[in-house]
Each structure stands twice: as C-alpha cells, then as structure tokens.
C-alpha cells in the first residue's frame, strides 16, 4: 500500500525527514528548496516552501528533538537553522565554516548539540545555548575523504560519521574537545549511510560496495577504548549502491534505499545469538521509484509507516506489514 507524489519538480529529492511528532514531513532537493508537507485527509499537501535559504542544492534536513527547529545542510557550504513560527519557518542563523559542500546535519537527542560534515573531510560539532546562539565546539579531521553522513547515538553523547574513505568513525567528548575514539574498517567502498538501533548498542552502515554491515560495541579491556566489531554483513541483496539505511525505533526493522531503484526491509531473527545477529529480507519493492532511491525514513510514531524519496523528485509513503 503506498502513496506517491512529486515533491521537487524537475530535480532530485535528496532527503526526507519526519518531525518528532510525525505530523510533518520535510523534504529538500536539487532545486535548492525545502518543502514542508502535512497530511490532509489521505494525501500530503505542501504547507510551506523555503526557497531562498540556500544558493545550491540542499542535501539533508534535520528536525530538532523538540520539533521547533529545522536544520538544512547545503552544497553552498552553509547550514541554515530555521525556527518554526506557526505554519511558517524563519531563518534564525546560518552556520558557516566548512570549506565546501556540507553533506549532512544532525541534532543530538539532547537538543543542545548539532553535528555537520562536509566534503572538506571534517566533522564540526556545534553547541546551542539558551539564547539560540550557535558556537563551534570542535572541528575533527578523522576522515581522509569526503564525509557523507553523521548520526548521533539515541541515548549517549556519541557521534558516528561515515565517508568516501570507506570508514566509519565514532567520536566522544574528552575535555571539552571531540575526538575520534574508534575507526570501523571493513567496507570496501564509500559508506553512504548510518543508523543506530533503538537501544544504541548496534550501528548499521550501508555502502557503495552494495552491503550493509552491523557493528556492535565490544566491552573494552581495562584502560583501552571501546572497539566496534562487525557482527553481521548483509550481502547479495542489493543490486547497486545502498544510499540510505534506517532502523525503526518502534519495531527494530531495518529499511534500505538503493541505487537499483528498490526499497527493502530486513527483519532480525529473534532466535539468533545477539553477538551474531541474523537478518533476513522481509519485504522488497523492486521499482519503488523510477530512479535511485536516496533516502528512507521510518515514521517515529506509527509502526510500519515508511517514506522514501528519489532522484526523480518523488516522495513515496509506504506501509510495511510484517507477517509475524
């Protein structure tokens, strides 16, 4: 069961994000615009268009945990922070500093921290204070190439990033400065997306090498840093690059967005050893879109509701029903 609509006419839709309450959908694209969609009966209507915030493609959007702010990351090297005022959004501030295209922005669950990453190989961590002032807390250069995605741990102050250099880096704060504490190697090509499982014990990554890897944090020996080990690799399921991956916070199902135009959902085998998880393909829509699927996101409140967007400018809303 699904619904499709054209979100960004004549250009790519790069990203879609549900607001924390699940009442709004934000999308962004190659037309440099951000669109906010709300449900009207059975269909989604465009409530607002934020057109003049950026001079180039908007690559990702992220809602703050409270739902009142929206951050947008753009190829114009800036990150814009928008504040929600009734049905409209106004640009609060523009974060500058990256040398070139900003690839991702993410809010920490606490709402006080923001992370951005860029083609300039760095990850920046920003702090927000009570007066809505944003300050750069740290600049970390752990990757040797374009950093594609950053994601925060659901409960701890931990950040993960992935890059064109095939690695995933995990960061922790030490003495007011953020440092890379672990480098997860294993993928043989660009890692495009990352997602934590609902408990935060595992991290899933998806890559240009057409696999998905599940990583688990191992209990550290005394005095050494925690290490992350790859406990599962899903290969042979995707025909092309896997661009995005999302772990459902409600059901634990794993959804992927692929360059072969398909959307897939994987379910975890309940009986497997927790240190050696087993995932099986539970649902597959081969031609979910007519072009590359760039993003996939689970609804935060309604189990089984999924949204995806594609290079053809379309957004599709899906209903996933797992047979128990």
């Amino acid at each position, binding site marked *: 069961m699904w619904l499709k609509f054209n979100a960004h006419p004549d250009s790519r839709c790069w990203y879609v994000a549900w607001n924390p309450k699940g009442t709004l959908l934000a999308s962004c694209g190659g037309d440099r615009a951000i669109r906010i969609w709300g449900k009207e009966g059975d269909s989604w209507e465009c409530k607002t268009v934020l057109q003049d915030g950026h001079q180039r493609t908007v690559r990702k959007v992220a809602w703050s945990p409270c739902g009142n702010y929206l951050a947008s990351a753009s190829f114009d090297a800036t990150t814009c922070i928008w504040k929600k005022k009734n049905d409209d959004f106004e640009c609060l501030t523009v974060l500058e*500093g990256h040398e070139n295209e900003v690839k991702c922005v993410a809010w920490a669950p606490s709402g006080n921290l923001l992370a951005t990453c860029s083609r300039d190989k*760095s990850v*920046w961590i920003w702090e927000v204070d009570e007066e809505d002032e944003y*300050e750069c807390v*740290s*600049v*970390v*250069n752990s990757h040797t190439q374009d950093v594609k995605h950053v994601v925060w741990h659901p409960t701890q102050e931990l950040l993960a990033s992935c890059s064109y250099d095939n690695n995933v880096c995990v960061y922790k704060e030490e003495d007011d*400065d953020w440092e890379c504490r672990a480098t997860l190697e294993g993928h043989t090509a660009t890692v495009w997306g990352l997602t934590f499982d609902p408990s935060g014990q595992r991290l899933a990554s998806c890559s240009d090498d057409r696999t998905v890897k599940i990583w688990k944090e191992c209990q550290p020996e005394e005095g050494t840093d925690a290490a992350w080990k790859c406990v599962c690799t899903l290969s042979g399921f995707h025909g092309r690059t896997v661009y995005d991956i999302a772990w459902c916070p409600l059901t634990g199902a794993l959804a992927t967005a692929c360059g072969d135009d398909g959307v897939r959902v994987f379910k975890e085998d309940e009986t497997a050893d927790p240190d050696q998880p087993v995932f099986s393909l539970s649902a597959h829509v081969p031609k979910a879109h007519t072009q590359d699927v760039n993003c996939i996101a689970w609804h935060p409140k309604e189990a089984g509701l999924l949204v995806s967007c594609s290079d053809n400018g379309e957004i599709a809303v899906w209903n996933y029903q797992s047979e128990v």
Partner: protein
Amino acid sequence: MAHKSEDLFDCILMADDRFHGEGYREGFDEGTRQGMIDGRKHGASHGAKLSMEVSFYYGFGITWKCLLQNNTDVKSRKRLKALESLLGLIQKFPHEEPHYENLQEDMEKVRAKFRQVCSLLNVPTDFSDYVKTGGSGGISF
C-alpha cells in the same frame, strides 16, 4: 710463469667488468652527492612552509589572546579557552624533530583547532594573502 700469463689475460678479459664497476661507483657517488643537495633543498622548503603555517597560527593565537584577555564576559572566556588550547597544541609540537611520527596527525589537529577558533571569533580562515611563498612580498610597514 703460469701466474704471470694469467694476470696478463686477466687484464684484458676483466677490463669490461672493471670499467663497469668503476663507472658504477663513480655514478653512485655523484648521484649520492646530488641527491643530498636536492634533498636538503626539498627539506628546507617543506620545513619552511610548515613552520610558516605553524608560526602564523601561533602569532594569530597570541595576538587574539592579548586582545581578549582583559574581557570577563562568558563569550570571551570561551574564546580564550579555545585560544589557549590552540597555543598549547603548538607548544607541544616537537619543532626540532623532522622524524616525529605523529607530525601529520598533530598538524591536522592544529589546523582543525585553528578553524574552530576562527569560527568562534568570526574571522575568516583564509590567510593565503598573508603567506607569500618564495620570499617575495613579505611584510611591509
């Protein structure tokens, strides 16, 4: 008698090898000398560039520290902290040690810290106008 005739033939037969060997040794020595000269030039220029960058950050840091140290507001204190951190990273740098194994890593840390400080101070990071290579330009008063 037999000994003498062997020597005589040796001279002729081994001439090729001998000249080959001598030529090789001469070439090797010459190459080593030239290599040292080139290497020294390369090292000097690379070292100069690196020093120029690090010293720039240091001077930048000290200047801003002087400008801000009498301010007591929260913002300035945060900036001073970041500046101190930058200066600290530079001071820890082993300036005399070209074989320092963490050179690249530490330089990246210094550069990253510099970018963060610039962001806090609201100062652009592009300093290429100030760094003129090859000794041309320099400081004018």
